[in-house]
């Protein structure tokens, strides 16, 4: 078992300067936000430069880390004394280990590509500078999330990315739908954050510290009940950020943001933070099997729910969002399986980062070409006019459905097989999910790029500029080879082991296992069915009403309706009641008291008749009483 001694204090070298990865994009964001319109002309370039610089630092750190022996790869960089309070003493520091550096590379790498892509995508938007500022802010917050060496730092990054996500979803504030979606995303995330905060509280009261390198080695010492509580609380946080059931509803609305945002935040990086949290807190979950079980259940439920939603959406971005939910469900499932699944979870996460970013950017490219149209029923036959987009999107598509030897094949099948060994029910559900994935991704692909052209009259699709296509190409290379590179020969597992623990036996990959074959067959069936319905035959321009199931999927499994019925309506009612109670009840009581006093004195003042003789009478009576009293008292 790991101990605190495994963590190495580090100060010098590139690792010592790893804080630059966070500071540079933060600086960029600050300059762009405070600089105002003066920075409009070169703002986007600064944003890209900061992101790239961060990436360069990350790569250098990565190589320096590789230079150490496997056991020496957990480096803690102390930054400063953050929160010295009575019993809570938080020192802010960065934890660099294989797990965090994987994330850092993904975030800065994919992030930089998306920055570059955005130069083209946002070229004509008056708020481009602001957009890059927010993107830089996001990168900084996300890096803090994965690099922090304690739960509080993680929490700061966690809410920081939430803020960036809020700002970017609502980037086009003038659209009421965007403003509402941004608010919804933030609030739903806050529900999750509440769980995360609660988890941190329990961690602190249990261990007296919230630093990873002190809590995690000691985790096994706590009672299982406490650990389960921590696990479930952290899971609630993870569900919020990663759009897992039951906090999934914000992700689909979040597609109101500009497409690069959907690619970076709502596909490749931020939404995977939940997986990072579960993997990072591995020792806690490993000692709490109940919490682990719940994680896997949530994962499977979400992967199916996301897939089902994906089948019915005509909005290309929402369909992709459904698939994101689903893929993160796979990662959650893997993360809930313990050390044996962690590597697959992270590998799938990285692979997904590539191919989903590639597809989202591809979708953005399509929208760019089609006057920001998102309805796939108005696409079709784009393959011929947008060759690069078609090919890169196609590669991403093949990767996600698990086409043999592409990224998704390695990572997803790894998850399915591990789950199958762990719990056949979960495994088979995951297989079914893979089959549905095959169907809905094919549907999306065929509806967009193949079949008859169903464009609007004024649509003149064209290939996007190079600044947009190059990132697509690079990302698609990643989506083709990334998975294989990581999984073949257990390369990634060995790399991650020092950070997340080594499973008892390294999983060996069987290319032609029964599960794999069944999965492939199911995917093939899904693809074929999609080809029949959407590739070969006519796609109606207006969505048919469809069965109950279709409606069910189209309405996001009634998630919004449920939220509305369970929380929003009663909430509104409660609010009105509380306002009424405050005005009439509490304040009414006070004002009533005042009115009572006022009324009483209003009556009492009638005694003041204005007749001097009445007053004289009362004076005289008083005098007589006094005399009487004097006698009584005097005689006593």
């Amino acid at each position: 078992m790991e101990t605190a001694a495994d963590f190495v204090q580090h100060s010098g070298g590139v690792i010592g300067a790893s804080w630059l990865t966070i500071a540079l994009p933060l600086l960029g964001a600050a300059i762009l936000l405070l600089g105002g319109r003066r920075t409009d002309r070169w703002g986007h370039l600064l944003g890209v430069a900061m992101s790239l610089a961060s990436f360069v630092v990350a790569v250098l750190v990565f190589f320096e880390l590789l230079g150490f022996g496997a056991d020496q790869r957990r480096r803690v960089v102390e930054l400063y004394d953050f929160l010295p309070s009575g019993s809570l003493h938080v020192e802010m520091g960065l934890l660099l280990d294989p797990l965090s550096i994987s994330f850092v590379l993904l975030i800065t790498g994919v992030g930089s590509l998306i920055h570059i892509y955005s130069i083209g995508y946002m070229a004509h938007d008056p708020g481009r500078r602001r957009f890059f500022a927010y993107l830089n802010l996001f990168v900084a917050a996300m890096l803090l999330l994965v690099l922090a060496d304690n739960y509080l730092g993680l929490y700061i990054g966690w809410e920081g990315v939430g803020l960036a996500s809020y700002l970017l979803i609502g980037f086009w504030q003038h659209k009421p739908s965007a403003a509402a979606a941004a608010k919804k995303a933030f609030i739903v995330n806050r529900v999750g954050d509440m769980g995360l905060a609660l988890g941190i509280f329990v961690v602190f009261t249990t261990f007296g510290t919230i630093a990873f390198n002190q809590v995690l080695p000691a985790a096994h010492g706590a009672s299982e009940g406490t650990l389960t509580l921590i696990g479930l609380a952290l899971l609630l946080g993870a569900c919020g950020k990663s759009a897992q059931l039951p906090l999934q509803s914000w992700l689909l609305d979040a597609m109101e943001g500009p497409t690069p945002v959907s690619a970076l935040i709502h596909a490749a990086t931020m939404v995977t933070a939940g997986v990072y949290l579960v993997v990072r807190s591995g020792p806690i979950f490993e000692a709490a099997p109940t919490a682990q079980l719940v994680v896997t259940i949530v994962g499977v439920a979400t992967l199916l729910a996301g897939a089902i939603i994906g089948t019915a959406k005509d909005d290309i971005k929402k369909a992709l969002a459904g698939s994101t939910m689903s893929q993160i469900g796979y990662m959650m499932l893997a993360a809930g399986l313990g050390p044996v699944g962690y590597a697959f979870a992270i590998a799938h996460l990285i692979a997904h980062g590539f191919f989903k970013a590639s597809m989202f950017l591809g979708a953005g490219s399509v929208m760019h070409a089609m006057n920001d149209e998102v309805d796939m029923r108005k696409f079709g036959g784009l393959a011929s006019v947008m060759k690069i987009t078609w090919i890169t999107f196609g590669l991403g598509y093949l990767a996600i459905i698990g086409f043999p030897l592409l990224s998704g094949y390695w990572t997803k099948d790894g998850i399915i097989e591990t789950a199958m060994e762990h719990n056949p029910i979960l495994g088979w559900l995951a297989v079914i999910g893979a089959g549905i994935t095959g169907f809905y991704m094919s549907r999306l692909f065929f509806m967009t790029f193949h079949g008859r052209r169903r464009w609007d009259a004024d649509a003149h699709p064209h290939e996007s500029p190079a600044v947009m296509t190059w990132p697509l190409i690079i990302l698609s290379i990643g989506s083709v080879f990334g998975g294989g590179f990581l999984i073949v020969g257990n390369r990634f597992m060995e790399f991650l082991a020092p950070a997340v623990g080594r499973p008892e036996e390294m999983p060996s990959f069987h290319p032609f296992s029964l599960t794999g074959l069944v999965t492939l067959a199911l995917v093939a069936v899904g693809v074929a069915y999609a080809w029949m319905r959407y590739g070969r035959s006519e796609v109606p321009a207006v969505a048919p009403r469809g069965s109950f199931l279709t409606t069910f999927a189209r309405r996001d499994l009634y998630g919004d309706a449920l939220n509305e019925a369970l929380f929003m309506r009663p909430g509104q009612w409660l609010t009105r009641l509380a306002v009424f109670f405050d005005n009439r009840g509490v304040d009414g009581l006070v004002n009533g008291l005042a009115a009572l006093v006022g009324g009483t004195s209003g009556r009492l003042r009638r005694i003041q008749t204005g007749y001097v003789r009445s007053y004289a009478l009362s004076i005289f009576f008083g005098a007589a009483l006094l005399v009487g009293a004097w006698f009584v008292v005097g005689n006593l």
Partner: protein
Amino acid sequence: MPWLSILMGVPVVGALAVAAVPKGSDKLAKQLTLGVSLVVLVLTLAMAAQFDRSGARYQFSEVHDWIPSFGVHYAVAVDGIALVLIALAVVLVPIVVLASWHDADRPEAKRSVKTYFALILVLEAMMIGVFAATDVFLFYVFFEAMLIPMYFMIGSYGGAQRSYAAVKFLLYSLFGGLLMLVAVIALYAIAAKGTFLQPELLGAIKDPTTQKWLFLGFFIAFAVKAPVWPFHTWLPDAAAQAPAGAAVLLVGVLDKVGTYGMLRFCLELFPDAAKFFTPLILTLSVIGIVYGAIVAIGQTDMKRLIAYTSISHFGFITMGVFAMSADAGAGATLYMVNHGFSTGALFLLAGFLINRRGSQYIADYGGVQKVAPVLAGTFLVAGLSSLSLPGLSTFVSEFLVLIGTFENYVVPAVIALSGMVLAAVYILWMYQRMMGGPVQESVKALPDLNLREKFVVAPLIALLVVFGFFPKPLLDVVNPAVHQTLTTVHAPQFTPAIPVTAEKKGAGQ
């Protein structure tokens, strides 16, 4: 050097000077006020720089007899808690002065401009005095005297319903103040020490029943001031009717006297009673947190909304004060300061909006972000600080309060956590309605912040951000004082269930 007397004297002299400015030269009065308040700020910083964090608890102490026959002293001194609160007050005053530059001189109002600014300075002196007083009687005098300038600031410079609000504010406060006066006198009489000096009265009341009654006398006064649910209904009225600057001082500083008093007097003078009443007060706090937030969601008037958010935040502060743990105590003190900055910024920005548009109703705005991005952006930052976004200083304090409460009282802390979500709802919904969406016709010509207003908001936001990432300077000052307080109360030391070996991080090297 009698630092504290100088700190109080400068604004008083300044107020007299401002009042003596000839009629018609309002600008001179304003500049003079700003100058005086900046001098006070500089003096305070100079004093704070000499504060010895590891020294005696009370520093810069001055004790003079005032009414010797009753043992009343002019006694002032500061510990860490008082110091940061005085700093809060003197930082806010120049900002408020700058923000209220044109608030008092609307021509139709026909009110004396210089009087308004003189009142601000008088109030500043009293705010310093109330935090610095170590004599219970002197504290009471400042506590009540503070009402007078604020009464006039609301009553003659406020909105349409100003006299209702001012009278309500005054009556509520007087009600609490009188109970406190009774308790102060009873404390003097029962303790029979012949002095009102707070340090000498510590532990003077032994009898538990007496402690409870006296505690209640003090607590209700502070609860009205703070305000704790259900004594809160004066605040929305007062804050909504007061001019924005006065509202900042009212909610930002004056109300802190309530929570400060709980920490300094209720807890230290009556430790046993405080422990006895803790469950009740925590319940009230939690109700305040949730209730204030829910009612805030339902408001249509932004100043009232901000006032209700403050009720929610004060719930956190009282919870922190009575959670009896070092973290929660430090958090509560920090919360008082940060809330001053955060709500101050919100109120001032709301004031700017109201000055521009002439309405405080949320429904009268829409799409402001498009026409006045800087205004909207700063409003968002202030709002985010109100919902305790990490990276802004309010988060640090809220986190400390919650985690500190969680150490001793799990259930209240968990319920209070829901305040986080509700805070997001009320702030972001307000932001969405006012700043998002299509631009409303009436705000199309809304000007963005001018230079003066940027100077008003910038320091507040800078403070929020700096202390959000680097709260250590404040915490270092506050921690010893909180520790002392808890020692007086005999609060138990927190011990984790499974203490991790106290090795430093990375001990393996």
